[in-house]
């Protein structure tokens, strides 16, 4: 076992995918000689050559468009969208083409779109967004996001091996989070959440960057004698409702956490499902702790915007006091 960062785990996962299958291709803005702005593709062009790991123009629509063509010709493209906020120019390719191909034409489309997402890195506008709700809402796409290095390795393997398109959101503020693991680590199936920490009083449901925030809240709560169960969704679509419901049936209270603005966000679906399916056991309304309803703010103010352990604990207190 060694201490592995999420960045290293994703890099290794990409390398292993390139080794396993000669049809795997990696491309995007600056992924070649530079190794990506976050160094996630570091060394891959050197090892696998310019035909399999290559730089593209700054044209996200084209990056996804050529992925569609390559996938139809038998390749397994793994395009990178450099930052979350840059995905909008490719929206039509992803929603109108990538997501619809199998249903319209009956052919598989094995594309994994990697997208570093989320804030908390002091970036300028368009570099800290959390656009996951749009894609989770789009029938025909799978959407996943890891919270730990081991899951990052395993989920990415599953995504690249999947015959359907997967949007793979990487929590960029957690690229340097470490875990003691051996690589290659175990495969992680798409569609399975996990309990990151067991607890009995309130279920805290998080994914990607906010799992670590939820764990911080759980450690603080423990000191006050409050037991939080932390669920890492890992897969946003398909969603593992069973794991969530099993936890809520035990705790009777739930808090959902994400960085995207709360209104119309992913948490609304989770809260609606829990409330519907566990209606008779809920002791308090499901709380949503999320980004504020404003465009992502300048870096100086992002701490005020992002959900932190204190805001989670306030929601926990309110849930426990309800009634």
């Amino acid at each position: 076992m060694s201490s592995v960062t999420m960045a290293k785990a994703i890099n290794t996962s990409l390398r292993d995918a390139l080794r396993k299958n000669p049809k795997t291709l990696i491309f995007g803005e600056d992924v070649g000689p530079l190794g990506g702005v976050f160094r996630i593709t570091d060394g891959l062009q050197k090892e696998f050559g310019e035909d399999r790991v290559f730089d593209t123009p700054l044209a996200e629509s084209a990056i996804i468009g050529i992925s569609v063509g390559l996938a139809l010709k038998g390749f397994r493209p793994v395009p990178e969208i450099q930052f979350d906020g840059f995905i909008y120019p490719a929206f039509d390719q992803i929603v109108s083409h990538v997501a619809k191909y199998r249903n319209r034409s009956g052919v598989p489309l094995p594309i994994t779109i990697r997208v570093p997402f989320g804030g908390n890195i002091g970036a300028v506008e368009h570099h800290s967004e959390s656009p996951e709700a749009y894609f989770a809402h789009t029938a025909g796409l799978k959407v996943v996001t890891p919270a730990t290095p081991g899951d990052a390795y395993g989920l990415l393997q599953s995504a690249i091996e999947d015959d359907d398109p997967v949007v793979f959101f990487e929590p960029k503020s957690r690229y340097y989070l470490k875990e003691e693991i051996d690589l290659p680590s175990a495969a992680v199936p798409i569609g399975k959440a996990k309990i990151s920490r067991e607890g009995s009083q309130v279920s805290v449901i998080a994914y990607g960057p906010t799992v670590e925030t939820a764990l911080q809240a759980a450690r603080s709560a423990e000191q006050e004698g409050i037991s939080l169960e932390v669920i890492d969704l890992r897969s946003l679509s398909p969603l593992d409702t069973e794991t969530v419901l099993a936890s809520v049936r035990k705790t009777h209270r739930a808090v959902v956490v994400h960085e995207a603005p709360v209104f119309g966000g992913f948490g609304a679906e989770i809260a609606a499902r829990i409330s519907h399916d566990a209606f008779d056991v809920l002791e308090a309304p499901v709380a949503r702790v999320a980004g504020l309803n404003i465009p992502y703010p300048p870096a100086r103010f992002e701490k005020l915007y992002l959900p932190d352990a204190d805001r989670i604990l306030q929601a926990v207190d309110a849930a426990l006091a309800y009634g």
Partner: protein
Amino acid sequence: MAVLTMRDALNQALREEMNRDETVFLLGEDIGLYDGSFKVTRGLMKEFGEKRVLDTPIAEEVIIGTAIGAAMSGLRPVAEMMTVNFILVAMDQVVNAAAHIRYMFGGGSKVPLVIRTPGGGGHQLGAQHSHSHENWFAHVPGLKVVAPGTPGDAKGMLKSAIRDDNPVMFIENEGTYAIKGEVPDGEHLVPLDKNDVKRQGDDVTICAHSRMLIVATEAAKELEQQGISAEIVDLRALRPLDMAPVIESVKKTGHAITLEEGWRSYGVGAEVASRIYEEAFDYLDAPVARIGAAEVPTPYNKRLERIAFPGKADVVVTARALLGKN
């Protein structure tokens, strides 16, 4: 008060605003010489000339980009996207530019822009012409999103949208252009942030917007014959979402259904249901039921398409189940 179709009510709103304010102008694909794909802009190019009604190339990103620039320079553009499906090509302009500019420049610049676009399906136009994406825009801070379902509201909200200093997504529906309703003459303004009870009832609250208002009304009539009294709340104001009439209604009925034409997962109903639980938790006698489209790209096949969209029977069965009457 005149009885007009939805398309004529929208046309009237555009004409009145163009007469009132010379900075208002229209741009979009085929809106001029051809009068618009759904004839909403009929006669306007002839009346106002080619400088105020512009036919554009088939390039949605350019249409919105141009409109944003014009809006920042003091004009009031009303851009038409032929269907909401095509706006995905312009998503970057809508989200990263239109919605964010006022914030990014600290209020130093504003974007008084209206984007008119129809969603909805049911006409065998296939997977890339039949979707409803209003929930995506409703998730974006910096935008206002409205989706009227009656000709009167359509006229009044379009006039308010054109006068608003923020970007407004004005969502129409291909299946409602021909419906008729009473439309007040002249100065008729409907606020962009007020939802409205369209039908009074006691047993169950149905929240719907746009074409689903028609489906909800048909269902309410059938339920009435079965002794169930349904209240319909029109969610014409989606962002900012006016929850007050919803909550007031649910406190009375204890039962709620959300009904939308788009996909259910992560849709409008998810937000509305969550808010009902947050604000009326103790009043609910049953979980909120959510009805939406089948979660597939819209099928072309006529029968499959019909089953893919919510209909009257779905609402009736759901309401009966909520009330324990199935």
